[in-house]
C-alpha cells in the first residue's frame, strides 16, 4: 500500500510524561484521516512533530516515500504540509488578500494573485471577497481565509485542528463539501477533533490516542459514537437521561432586558425575554460573540439592570449584586474559569469562598471557619473527582477540565434553586464533560431550574427541553423542536430567519 505520510514509533517525552509513546500512523493519499483523543491524549504533540515545531525523541517519518524530518514549520510547508490552526492568525484591520499575501513567501499582491484567490474560492466553494476587511468577517469566513492561504501553497497534506468548534451547523456542512473536494483533488487531510458525529460523517479512517498511546486505528463508520467515545476515554460513558421531568411554575424570568454595550466591539442586547420553570433545563444556543458575555454579566449581577428586568421567585432582582442573588439561591458558573470563576493564584480552598452566600457554614459574621472550608473543599474534590494533590493547590495549576469540575461542584454543593451556567464543558475532555452533564441533569431532576448558555449545539440539544437562540444581541422565542427544529436553530444562529 502506498502511503502519503508514514509515522513510525514516534516517542516524545516532557520530563516523566510521555506525551507520545510509540505512536504510528499512516495517511493514504486523498483520504480524510481523523485524529481523535481527549485533551492531553497527545494529539497536539503528534501534530507539532509532523508540522516541524517539535523534534521527537525517537521514531521516524516518511513523506511521499522519502525520509522526512522537518526542522521547523517553514520546512514542513516547503515540502507540502500545511496547517489551519484552531486560533486564527489574521490581521483584523487588513483585507483578505493582504492577509493571504502576508502569509506567503516570494509573492506580490497584484491582479494575478487576486484572481488566483477567486479561482480557489470558486473551485472549493470557499465563498470569500478578497477585498473585504477581515475584521468584518464571521468566524466561518475567517476560517475560509485561512484555508485559502494554505491552499495557495499547494499542499499535499492539510492539517486541521478542531476546525468546527466555532462554526454554525450550516458552515460545518459547507466546510465538509470543501474538504471532500480537496481530498478528491489529491490533498489528504488530517482532521483533529473530538466531535465524533462529524468524524463519522466525513473521515474514512480514525486514529485514536489515549494518554499518549495509540489505542486503535479504525473506520469510524463501523462504530457508534458511543463506542468511539469510550475508546477515547477508556471507560464506559453514562447515558444521559432525565429521570424526572417534573417542571412546575416559572421560577426565573428575564423581561425585556436591554443593554447598550460599553465595549466598542461589544454587542448590544435587545429586549431579551425568557422564562425558566422549576425542574427544567433551558438552553441559549448561538455562536460566540453574539451577546453571550454581555448577557452573562447581567445574569450574574456583575452589572445591574432595572429591578423588574430580572425576576426570581417572585422578587425583582435586576438591581441586586451577585452576592445578594446567591442569598436567594441563584448560583452561577461563568465561561472563563481562570480570573473570573476562580482566582488563579489562590488555592482551591480559598476559591471555595468566592461564591459563598451570606448564610454559609464557611463563615459567620464574615469570620472564616477554615476547618469547614477544608471539609467542604474535600467534599467537592471527592464528589466531583477533581484530580489534585491537596485542597491548597493553586487554581491555575489545575487542568481546564479539572478546574471546571471543581467549579461545577462548588456551585452544586450549595443546592441552587437556579443555576446559570455558560459553556459548561468548554475545553473539557469527553469523560469529564459526561460527568458534568450527568450532574446537571441530576440537579434538574431534583427540581432545580437550569439555564445553559452554550456554543456547543450538541450539548444544548442533549440537555435542554427548551431552546432559544441568541444572535446579534437578540434572543429568539423558544424553538419548536418537533418541526424541523435543527434547521430553524441553524438559521437563527446565522441571523437569517425567514
Amino acid at each position, binding site marked *: 500500500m502506498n502511503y502519503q505520510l508514514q509515522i513510525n514509533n514516534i516517542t516524545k517525552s516532557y520530563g516523566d510524561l510521555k506525551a507520545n509513546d510509540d505512536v504510528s500512523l499512516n495517511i493514504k493519499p486523498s483520504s480524510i484521516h481523523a485524529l481523535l483523543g481527549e485533551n492531553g491524549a497527545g494529539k497536539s504533540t503528534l501534530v507539532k512533530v509532523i508540522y516541524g515545531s517539535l523534534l521527537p525523541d525517537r521514531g521516524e517519518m516518511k513523506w511521499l516515500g522519502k525520509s522526512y524530518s522537518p526542522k521547523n514549520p517553514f520546512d514542513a510547508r516547503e515540502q507540502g504540509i500545511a496547517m489551519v490552526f484552531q486560533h486564527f492568525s489574521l490581521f483584523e484591520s487588513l483585507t483578505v488578500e493582504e492577509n493571504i499575501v502576508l502569509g506567503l513567501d516570494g509573492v506580490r499582491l497584484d491582479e494575478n494573485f487576486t484572481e488566483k484567490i477567486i479561482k480557489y474560492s470558486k473551485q472549493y466553494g470557499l465563498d470569500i471577497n478578497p477585498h473585504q476587511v477581515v475584521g468584518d468577517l464571521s468566524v466561518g469566513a475567517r476560517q475560509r481565509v485561512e484555508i485559502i492561504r494554505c491552499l495557495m501553497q499547494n499542499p499535499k497534506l492539510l492539517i486541521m485542528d478542531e476546525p468546527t468548534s466555532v462554526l454554525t451547523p450550516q458552515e460545518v456542512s459547507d466546510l465538509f463539501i470543501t474538504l471532500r473536494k480537496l481530498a478528491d483533488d489529491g490533498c489528504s487531510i488530517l482532521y483533529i477533533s473530538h466531535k465524533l458525529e462529524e468524524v463519522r460523517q466525513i473521515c474514512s479512517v480514525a486514529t485514536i490516542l489515549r494518554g499518549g498511546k495509540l489505542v486503535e486505528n479504525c473506520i469510524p463508520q463501523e462504530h457508534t459514537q458511543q463506542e468511539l467515545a469510550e475508546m477515547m476515554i477508556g471507560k464506559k460513558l453514562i447515558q444521559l437521561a432525565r429521570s424526572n421531568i417534573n417542571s412546575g411554575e416559572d421560577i426565573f424570568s428575564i423581561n425585556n432586558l436591554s443593554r447598550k454595550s460599553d465595549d466598542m466591539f461589544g454587542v448590544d442586547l435587545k429586549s431579551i425575554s425568557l422564562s425558566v420553570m422549576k425542574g427544567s433545563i433551558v438552553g441559549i444556543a448561538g455562536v460566540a460573540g453574539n451577546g453571550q458575555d454581555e448577557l452573562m454579566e447581567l445574569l450574574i449581577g456583575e452589572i445591574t439592570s432595572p429591578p423588574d428586568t430580572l425576576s426570581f421567585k417572585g422578587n425583582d432582582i435586576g438591581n441586586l449584586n*451577585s452576592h*445578594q442573588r446567591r442569598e436567594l439561591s441563584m448560583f452561577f458558573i461563568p465561561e472563563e474559569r481562570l480570573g473570573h470563576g476562580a482566582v488563579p493564584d489562590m488555592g482551591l480552598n*480559598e476559591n471555595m469562598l*468566592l461564591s459563598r452566600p451570606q448564610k454559609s457554614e464557611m463563615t459567620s459574621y*464574615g469570620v*472564616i471557619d477554615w476547618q469547614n472550608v477544608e471539609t467542604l473543599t474535600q467534599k467537592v474534590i471527592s464528589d466531583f473527582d477533581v484530580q489534585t*494533590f491537596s485542597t491548597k*493547590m493553586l487554581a491555575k495549576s489545575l487542568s481546564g477540565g479539572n478546574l471546571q469540575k471543581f467549579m461545577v461542584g462548588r456551585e452544586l454543593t450549595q443546592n441552587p434553586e437556579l443555576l446559570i451556567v455558560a459553556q459548561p464543558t468548554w475545553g473539557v475532555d469527553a469523560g469529564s464533560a459526561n460527568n458534568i452533564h450527568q450532574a446537571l441533569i441530576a440537579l434538574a431532576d431534583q427540581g432545580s431550574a437550569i439555564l445553559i448558555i452554550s456554543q456547543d449545539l450538541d450539548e444544548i440539544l442533549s440537555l435542554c427541553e427548551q431552546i432559544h437562540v441568541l444572535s446579534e444581541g437578540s434572543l429568539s422565542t423558544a424553538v419548536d423542536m418537533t418541526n424541523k427544529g435543527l434547521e430553524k436553530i441553524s438559521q437563527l444562529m446565522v441571523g437569517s430567519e425567514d
Partner: protein
Amino acid sequence: MIRLIPRVENSTAMILLSPLLALTLTAISAYLIFVSILVDIEVSSVFYTLFVEPLTDSYYLSELLVKAAPLMIIALGLSIGFRAGVWNIGAEGQYVIGGIAGSAVGLYFYDVEGFWIIPLMALAGILGGMFYAGIAAFLKTRYQVNEILVTLMLTYVAVLFLSAMLQGPLRNPSGFNFPESRLFHDSALMPIIWQGTRVHIGLIIAVLLSFVAWFGIKKHIFGMQIKISGSAPRAAKFAGFNDNKTVWYSLLISGGLAGLAGLFEAAGPAGQLTPGLPQFYGFTAIIVAFLARLHPIGVLFSSLLIALSYVGGENVQIDYDLPKSITQIFQGMLLFYFLACDILIKYKVVLFKTIR
C-alpha cells in the same frame, strides 16, 4: 542551562528561606561595596557597627524600637492596600496631616489635664490621615484618577501645609518666631513604657494592631475581598465584592494608620510639632511592607530590620564619617534581593544539560 519551572503549590520552605537568602546576598554585596570604597578602615568593624552594635547597647536598642514603631503602623496599613492593588505611595503626606491634626487638638487643650487628651489626639490623627487619603479615594472612584500620582503629589502639599501651620496658627507664641509649636504639656505626651528612653506606648499599640490586621486578613472575608480585588478584579465582581468599596477601605485604612503614626511621632519622641516631623517613614514603610510580603506579622520583623539599618547607619556616619546614603543603599539592596528571591516561592530552579 538554568530554567525556572512553576510549582503547583507555593513552597513553604522557600517562604521561610528566601528572606535569609536575601539577607545573605545583601550582606555579601554590602561587603563587596565596602571593600571597594573604604580606605584604611577595617570592613569587619564597619559591619559590626552597622548590624551588631545597635543590638548590644540599651540606648541603641531603645532608639531602634522608637524608629520601628511608626514604620510598623504605617506598613500595616500599606500592606492591606497593596494586597488590594491600591497603591498608596503618599503615606508620608497622610502621616504629616495626621500629625498636624492630632497636635492641633493637643495644643487646643494646652495645659488641660486629662487621660482623655491623648486618645482624642490619636483620633484626630487617624481622621486627618483618613481625610487626606480619602481625597485620593474620591478621585479614584469618581473620576478614575490614578491614586499613585494623587497620594504622592499630596505629600508635597502636606509638607508645605505643615510649614504654613508652623509659621501661622500653630506657632509657639513665645518661641522667638521659630517655626515650631509649643512643647506639648504632660497630658498630651505619649506615655513612656521604658523609663529613661524614648520608647512609648505606640510600640505596644503597633504590635496589637498587627495582630488585628492579621486576623482581618487571614480569618475574615475582608482579607479575601482585598486579595481578590488585587489579583483578579473580575473574580471579585463575580463574588459580589464592590471594587469602589475596596478602594475606599484600602485608602482609609492606610491613611488612618499613617495619620496615627504621625501623631505618635509628634506626641512621642518630638514632644512638639516641628518642621522635622516628616522623616521619610511613609516612604520607608513601603519597603517594610514588601519585605514583610504584605503580611501583618512579617511587618513586625521587617520594621525592626529596617529600624536597625537606620540606627546602624547613623552610627557609621558618626564613627567612620561615612555618608548617610549607606543606609539607603542597604535598604535598596535588601528590597531588591528580597523581591528577586521571592520568585523561588512560586518557581523552582532546574539545572539541566541539553543533549542532542
